[in-house]
Structure formats: C-alpha cells, structure tokens
C-alpha cells in the first residue's frame, strides 16, 4: 500500500506539490480502550500456559499498554479451571505438572477467561490441543547470497546462515497439521570485566514462519528452509539456535497468517489487502463489545543447532566495545539481567 500511495504521488511529484501529512482519525468508540488478549497452552512436562492482556494502543507504544487483570483462568471442556498467576505487567503464566489434577492432553479442548478490574469479562472459545509432529532434522549451513546492505542499500554478496528442517506434517493421529516455528538463540560473549555472558533472544521479532497444510500436498517437509540469519559479531564466541515447532489448528493458522500479513506488509502491489484480524475471544458480559487476540492449544517440539564460529570469518567480537559505540553490556553484562546470564547453560558444549 505504501508504494501504491507513493506511486500515486508521482504526478504531484512532477509538480512538486504533493503533501504527506499525518492524519487523525476519529477512532470509533468500539476501539476506545479495546482489550487485546493473547495466549496459548503448550502440552509438555510441565505444560505451560501464558496469557498477555493489553490495551490496543495508539501508534506510539508505551509500557502502560499492558493491563493487570482481576483474574485470568484456564478452563477445559469439562469445566475445570485453574488460576494463572501474574508473571509481569499484563502477563500471566502457569506451569501444569502431570498428575496435578488438570489434564493437558492432545485432543482435549481448553479456553481462558479474563476478568478486568473495570468489570469487563472476556472468554475464549474452546481450542482443541493439537499434537505436534517431531522434527527429524535441523541443520545450519553457511551460504553466500546476494542481499541488500542496509547501510549502502546496495546489493552485496554476503554469507548467511540457512536453517533447514526435515519434519513430518502428521501428528500422532496421522492427521496432517499446520505448523509454525519460533526461533530463539543463545549466544556467548565476554564482557570487559572478563565475565562470560549468555544472552537469549528471539532471532527476529518480525519473523513468522508457518506452513498451512491445505496449501501443500506432501505429508512431510524435507530440507525445508525455515530461516535465514545474517551473521553478526554476536556469533563470534558461539551461538545456539533453537527452532520451536508448534502445531496449529485451522483457526490458529489463519490468525498467524493474518498477523504475518499485517506486520510484514512492506507496500508492494502484490501483497494482500489488509483486513481485521480474526479472534476467538468475546466479551462475555457485552456481546457487542470489541476484543482482539487469540488463544490456542498446542504442543511443541524443539531442536537446537550450534552455530560454530570457527567457520564464520568474523574477527570483531562484541566486546571490548569501541569508544562510545558499543553496547553497555560490555561494562558489566550482569547489569542487564532480563536476557543475560553468566550461568552456562547445561547444553553448552564448550
């Protein structure tokens, strides 16, 4: 859309009289203080439930957008309920261990109920827990590719790391399922105080990679490219990349495909027209009330792969930082406790 707009400005560009102004809409009442609730239950040992509650925020994000709820509950198809404790602002998480009295099983259905201090109450539809097929292989490989240099905006041949998987699309019931992947990484660096730090982040916050089983005919993905990662100095001391595969039901895959369409639209003519995100939540005490977000039930399968820095031609470490240019973590990585740790993960091999 952006480029369409830009294109339509070509005639005014001729005339040097096109204008681009911010415009303020009168946001319809139904969007004033609209609540967005997202969550999922993941079968595992233990199973986990995570829910976030936030206000739909205007185009300038502030941390105040997250909402603290009066209560957040998980329920199943039999009416069993569990309260979710607060994990952080607007964030609620719960671990459910086996034999806790609340069964988390493939084929069962689950939902959430959220009550706010304002009196608003929201409830999701029941979502069936979908079992995830296991990945047979995760590999990384270094390849040279023509990519755009963000600085020079010119095409350059650069090495990138490609991640490929082999996985079945068949879950336990031999039913084809939709897949979505999340990508995390943990990399190591040594700060200026000689502390060895391990940092865990998402690989690319903007990336949503998924496969809709209805659009492919095979029952498996072989050597399927799921991620390309540019190399960086953060890989110098080594990096583990985690691929988290989850299964989605037919509604959840639509939700995530729509999220991807909305968030990655970069203005080419070929992109689909935008629309309103689907939701499986509703406001229980006001059927006309507006709410966005999605709750789904899934299972994860995670594989990790070590990216060996020895085959990456990198000579500049994260630290020491150059004068006035490096990250503050070089002073003391432990000063940034949220994603940084000096504890060596158990899986780290060297």
């Amino acid at each position, binding site marked *: 859309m952006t480029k369409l707009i830009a294109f339509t400005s070509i*005639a005014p560009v001729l005339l040097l009289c096109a204008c681009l102004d911010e415009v303020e809409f009168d946001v319809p009442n139904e969007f004033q203080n609209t609540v967005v609730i997202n969550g999922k239950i993941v079968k595992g040992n233990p199973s986990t439930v995570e829910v976030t509650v936030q206000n739909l925020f205007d185009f300038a994000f502030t941390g105040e957008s997250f909402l603290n709820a009066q209560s957040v509950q998980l329920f199943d198809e039999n009416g069993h309920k569990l309260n979710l404790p607060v994990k952080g602002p607007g964030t609620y998480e719960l671990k459910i261990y086996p034999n806790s009295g609340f069964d988390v099983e493939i084929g069962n259905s689950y939902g959430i109920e959220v009550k706010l201090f304002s009196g608003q109450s929201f409830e999701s539809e029941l979502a069936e827990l979908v079992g995830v097929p296991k990945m047979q292989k995760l590999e990384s490989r270094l390849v040279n590719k023509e990519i755009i240099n963000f600085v020079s905006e010119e095409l350059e041949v650069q090495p990138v790391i490609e991640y490929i998987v082999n996985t079945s699309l068949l879950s336990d019931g031999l039913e084809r399922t939709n897949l979505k992947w999340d990508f995390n990484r943990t990399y190591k660096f040594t700060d200026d105080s000689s502390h060895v730090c391990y940092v865990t982040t998402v690989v690319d916050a903007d990336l949503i990679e998924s496969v809709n089983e209805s659009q492919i005919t095979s029952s498996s993905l072989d050597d399927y490219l799921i991620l390309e990662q540019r190399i960086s100095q953060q890989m110098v001391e080594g990096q583990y990349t985690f691929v988290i595969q989850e299964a989605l039901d037919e509604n959840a895959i639509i939700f995530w495909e729509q999220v991807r369409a909305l968030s990655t639209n970069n203005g080419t003519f070929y992109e689909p027209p935008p629309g309103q995100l689907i939701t499986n939540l509703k406001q229980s005490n006001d059927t006309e009330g507006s709410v966005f977000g999605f709750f789904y039930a899934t299972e994860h399968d995670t594989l990790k792969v070590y990216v060996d820095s020895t085959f990456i031609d990198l000579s500049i470490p994260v630290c020491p930082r150059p004068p006035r240019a490096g990250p503050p973590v070089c002073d003391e990585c432990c000063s940034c406790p949220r994603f940084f740790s000096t504890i060596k993960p158990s899986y780290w091999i060297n």
Partner: protein
Amino acid sequence: MIKLSKTLIVFLLISIGFATISYSQEAQQTLITENFSNQSCKAILSQLQDKYRVRFFFKESELPKRMFDIQFTDQSVDDVLDQLLLNSSLGHYSYRENGIIILPVVDMETEYSAEYYAALDKSVGEPQSTSTSQTQLVSIGNISTLDASGSAIVTGRIIDDQTDEPIIGATVRWVNTDGADVTDFDGNFKTQVPSGSRELLVEYIGYQNLIQVYDVKGNGQLDLRLEKEAVGLDEVTITAQAANSNVEKAQIGVATLSVAEIKKLPAFMGEADIVKSLLLQPGVSSLGEGASGFNVRGGDVDQNLVMQDEAFFFNSSHALGFFSAFNADMVSSVDLYKGNIPSKFGGRLASVMDVKLKNGNNKRWRLKGGAGLVSSRIGLDGPIGDKITVNTGFRSSYADWVLNLIDIPEVQNSSAFFYDANVRINMRFNEKNNLTLSGYSSSDDFVYNNEFGFDYSTLIGNLSYNTTFSDNILNKFSAVYSQYKSSQSQLTGFEGARIGNDINYVKLKDELSITNSNELRIDVGGSAIYYFMKPGVRTSLGDMSTVIPKSLEDEQGLEAAAFANIELPIGDALLITGGVRLSYYQYLGAKSVFQYTDPINPTLATIGEPIQYGDGDVIASYFTPEPRLSLRLKLTDDISIKTGYSRTAQYINQIFNSDSPTPSSQWQLSTEYLKPQTSHNLSIGYFHNFADNNWETSFEVYGRQIDQLYDYRDFANLFVNEHLETELLSGEGRSYGAELSIKKKKGTYNGWLSYTYSRAERLIDGINDGNYYPSNFDKPHDLSLVLNYQPNKRNTFTVNFNYGTGRPTTAPVGNFLTKTGLFVPIYTERNQLRIPDYHRIDVAYTLGKGWKKDKRFQSSWTLSVYNIYGRRNAFSVYYDNTGARKAIANKLSILGYAFPAITFNFEII
C-alpha cells in the same frame, strides 16, 4: 384526416365546387398541345407548369409511378390530368385562377379550415420554391400537403456546416407557435406549424443561432447547416443540451455538457477534460485527484460503460486519472446515461458514457492544437475530394522532461508518459450510404524511482456503415476490434515482477431505426462481443527477483444481445420509451475449472480436482432479460415528471485489491462461480424550466438494487490466482439517493449548482459480520457549484467549488504487541472509517478566439488556478510501520497546493 359526417361532406363538396367555379376559370381555359415520351408524371406536370400558366400542387409520392408516352392536342388541363391520373386514386380540382390541386380522392372529401384556404390563397400565383437562400423569403412545401387544420409538418435535419455531422439536441422552434422539437441522434427534427409566414429559430450551444423566416405552404423538408460561433474556445461541440430538452426528453438521468462549457471550466494543468467536467454533474463523483475513472450514483468504476463511437474502453484515464482518455478536440458529442439506460446499450450496471467523435472539416484543411505545462495536442482535419473527410488528433505528455529538471533523485528516476492518437475517416458515398473508419491508440507508462510502475495501452479499430433505406429507415452496422493491455511492475528486490492482464474483444452490432410520421420511433438490433483474455501473466524482473514466473490459462467469453426499443408519444403530454434487451453470455473453454464440494461457497478448504474443458466448450452460460422503460409526463411546456426503470447485467468485472482502483486492477470475465452482476435501477424526477428555458431545475431520486456483486475476502490473494473464486465473496448491494440541479444557461452571469445525497452499501456474508457496509465509493454528500461571469463572448471568468464527503477506508486504529516483540496493527472492519472531507475552489479566465472567424490564425488562452486555497485533500490514508517501531496514520494529498496553469490553443486554416 378528419372524418366528416355526410352533411359535412355534402357541404364540403359544394364548397369545393363553388371554389372551383369561382377561381379556376383561367386554368380551365388553357389548352395544351404537347407530346411526351417516356416521362414521369411529375416531369410532365413540371413541364406543363413551366410552359403554361398553371400551377400544380401535389405530393410526389402519390403520383403514378409509371412512365408516360402520351400526346395532347388542344386539350384542357382537366382532360390532361384525367388522362394522367387515370387508374389512380387521385383526383384534382382547380383553385382560383391558375391553381390545380392533385389529391387522393378521399382527401378531397375533407373539410378544410380557413387557415388552409388562407395558405392556398397565398400560394396560388406565387412561384413554388424551396430556396435555401437566407436573403430571400423561403417557401416550404405546397398547398396540396397542408392538412385540414392548415398546419404543415416540417421535418428536417440540422448538421454542422463544416463537418456535415448531425447536431444532436439542437432546438428547433417556430416563434410564436407551439411547433418545436429537439434534434435526435441523427440531427433530425419534426415540427408541426401553422401555414403562413413563420419565423424559425434554431439554437445550439457553441453555434450561431439560425433565424430564418419561411413561408410555410405545406409539408416540407428543411436541411439546415449551423455555423459555429466565431468566439468560443471550442470548435468542437458537444452535447445535447437543448433549450428545453431536460423537460421534453423521455430519458431520465441523462447528464450532458457542452464542450464549450467544458473548456471554460478550470482544468488541472489547463487540459480540458470531459470526464472531469462530468464530475460536476449531480450523481457523478470520483475518489479525488489520482483516482482512475469515475463513479455514477455510487456505482463502481467498472460499472460504467465508457464508449467512443461503438468501441468501449476498459480504462478511461491517463496518468492515474489526472487526464481522461478522450481528446476533446476530437469529440462531437457526449452523453452520460446515469439513470435509465437505453436498451441498445448493455454490459454495465450503472451508466453509459457515450462519446461520439466528429468528422473532419469538409471544406478546408485545418491545423489546430494546444500547449500546456506537461502535455500538448495537435490535430489536422480536412477533406479529400468531395466525399471523404479526415480528422486526426494526437496528444502527448512530456512530463519526463520536467522530471529531469527536478534535483531530487526519486523524481529524476521517475517517469510519467502518455499519448493518445485518433484518426477518423468518413466516406460519404452518396446521400444514403456512409462509411466511417476510425482508430484509437494510447499508451501510459509510469515508473516511480525505478522501483515500481504501471503501464497500460489501448488499441481500437472501428468500422461503421450507415445506410438510409428511406427517409424513415436507417441502419447502422459497426465492427470493432479492441486490445487493452495493462501491467504493474515491481522493478527491484526479491519481489521484482511484472503482472499483466490483457483483454481483447471483437464486437459486431447492427441497429435499425424506423420512424413514422406520428413521431413513433422503433429501434431494433443485435450485438455480439467475443472476449479473449489473458487474465494473469507474471514474469520476474531484475537480477534479485525470486519470483517464479506464472501464467494463467487464457479465457474466452461471448456476450450476445438482442434489443428493441420503441418511443411512443401519446398526445402531447405523455411520452413512453420502452424496450427490452435480451442478453446471453457464455463462458468458453479451453480451460481447466476447479471443482468444489460446496460450489456456492468455493474455498481452498473445499477445492477439488479441476475438469478440463475443450476449446469452445461452454463452461457456463447466463441469460438475462433486461427490460427498460421511461415515461415522461409533461405537465406544462416547462414542467415534466419523468420516471424510469432498467434492469442491467454485467458479464465482465474489475477486481480491486485495495479501496482505490488502480489502472491495472484485474478484469475478470464471469465464470462458473463468479456469476454476472445484475441490478434493478429505478428513478423518478421532476423537471422545471423557467424564464424561457434559461433556468433549468431538476430533482431526481433513484435507487439501485444489485442482486449479485463481489468483494474480496480479507487478506485475499488476488494476483495470478487460478482459483480466484476462493478469494472473493458474493453478496448484494444497494444504492439510493437524491440529486438536485439548478442551472442558469445564459446571461452575463451563468452557471449551475449540483447537489447529490447518495449512499452505496453492500451486504456480503463474510464481511463485517454480514452487515451492510459502505462501498468504496460511498460519498453521501457531493456538491458542485460553477459560476461564470461572461461580460462578452470572448472573455469568461469561471469559479467552481466542489465538496464531497470523505470516502470510506479501512485503516489501522491501533497496535498490539506479541510476546516476541512484534507490533501487529489492528484494522477496522471493511470501510469503517472515512478519510477527511474533500473540498476545493478553482478559478479560470478564458480569452477566446478573435471576433473575426475567417482569420487564418486564431488563438485562445486559458489561465487557471486549481485548488486555489491549497486544500490538502486526502487521496488516501496509509499506515507507516517502518522506522522507530511505531505506526503513524498518514494521508497523502495528491495536490496539496494551489496549482496554476496556462494553456495556449491555436487554429490555422
């Protein structure tokens, strides 16, 4: 003919006998000695008239058709006529000294009025003439054709003095009588006028008034030529806006505008634009600067049938709508049917814009043209021999030259070019046979910063052959070939690709028009259109492109129609125009067609294996009867009420992937799953003229129910999709509104005001929870005000003001954040918001041609300022999610400042 009682007949015979005895003695006494060999009755009568002192009054069509070998020796006139009229139904009687009237016997039994005899008195003894000299008193007809009331039927044709083109909509009025008419599409008129000396006034915008006194003696034919006004920007002329045509015509919802008026309006970049001028009419709107096409009564852009002669366009715009595809210098007439569409037109739901080109000058060659800031035009027209005229026109932009002067890389790497060329050759073999060959070619090419662009082109060839079988029967045959190619390109990056959508069609049409003396008109005919399309071809562009080339199967369709229309006056007050169009459409192979377990609601989830159809196989067919009806009830000469109903069907649609159409929005034939769009259209209006038709007012209300239409699903994948039906949802639509128009046509101060209230809504299961939602073109309020100050014919100042409600849009109203840190925008439901209201004021000054129309070089100037107070009207609103991870809603104003322009027009003869 008046039916008389026996008493009256006896009285009549006595009267005639008395008159004969009283006044015909001299004629009776004339003795004739002549010898005629192989001569017609008319020729014999003419020779006798020339040689002897006798005058015959007759209808040539009633005379015996055989040839005579006959000899007269000292025979009386009565004897001569008896022999000539032997075995015919004609009789004769003498009138006064030297007049003899030849009539069917039954006519002779008719009672004649005092006016009849007054006319007869005057005609006897005067030379019979039909001189066209305007310096002499011209006589029309002869007494033998006068009806009993003493009135004559005067028919005729009004044509352009230079081009021989019929002038449509000219007012023909006998001063101080009730006799008046408006010329039809062929320039024909028909009036009834009391005999005697009568003043005829013929008026038409852009032409000099023709005022001529005639001595009306009986029925006759007048073929008149109108000369254009010397002062006027226009040499062409357009439209049918006769003095009282808005009251007289049966058709409701016809928008007309003269090119003379168009050229006085302030124009963007100084280029007179037919489409933009129509936007000032009630019920006609667009999305603003930069939007392709126009919208009629809330209809979509693709629901307008845009015709140039018999060819129709798939894109009526250049430069994304900044210019229209029509070169005003080439245009003869424009009519926009926005209400009831005549049955000879079909294939679109909302309107028909019928543009007629004009022939070249038949007397002399002429070079004409104009130069503006970013485009120019030139044309040449003239005669080749006596029977052939040629008219050519060429327009082109030179925006690239301007772009290169601007020291902004994005601009220098951009280009905007278009051209169009017209040629029209008219061959008049004789009075009854006329052949016209015309061609049209245009191309648009736009590139923005070498990143992306559009290009599209139109090629049209048109042959039409008109045959006049008799005065009352006219046949028009036409054959058209057209080719429209469009594409949009992403020039760089991994998504570098070009997507093309091409349409070819061949159209054949034949139309027969029959009229009779009772003003009854019947039009019958048929047409067939064969479509051949390439619905989608994708090719990769650039070294970085990872796009996989793809091509959809060709598509074919056949749209045939038979139509009939009758225009029937019932008395003076009621005029009925009714007809029917029977349209039949076939979607043809060869093609593979996907099957669905639920074919009513095809989705990817229900898709199955395709069925292969062979070449020419009928995949789907649709038949739609389309009745059309208009009624006009004239309450007084200045007031009428009209109503109209039409059923319309559309077999080819444009699929938009955004809330603003682009030139490359994909055209798609109706298929097995995408059924034709159909609608019911109803309108009713009140028309009232004042001050001798100088003030025109009208108020119309209308409604349209669309039984079948399509809109895309959210997040639809529309490009090069072999199962496009899975991305579209079908439903219904409705539009309704009211239009008010007030117009002052003449005077130092003139102009018009148009106000429209309209709504256009859709109801589609799967969009906005199945509730009605506004269509992309729903603009409830639309106001246009045009004021002209014309102190004399050469100077004109014009101001116009436009206001319109902002159009609906679907826009993001907020964000949420995922756990991984992804910002996700939330959009409203479809078209839930509106962009800010649109308004602007333009001014223009026109210095017309000089007073001397015979000067070899003539020029005119137009100075204009578009958007004089620099209103930053939003063309579109978009969401910028780049940069600092926050989104901002922006509006793009295509013209954000006042824009002055100057245009120079010239003509060399």
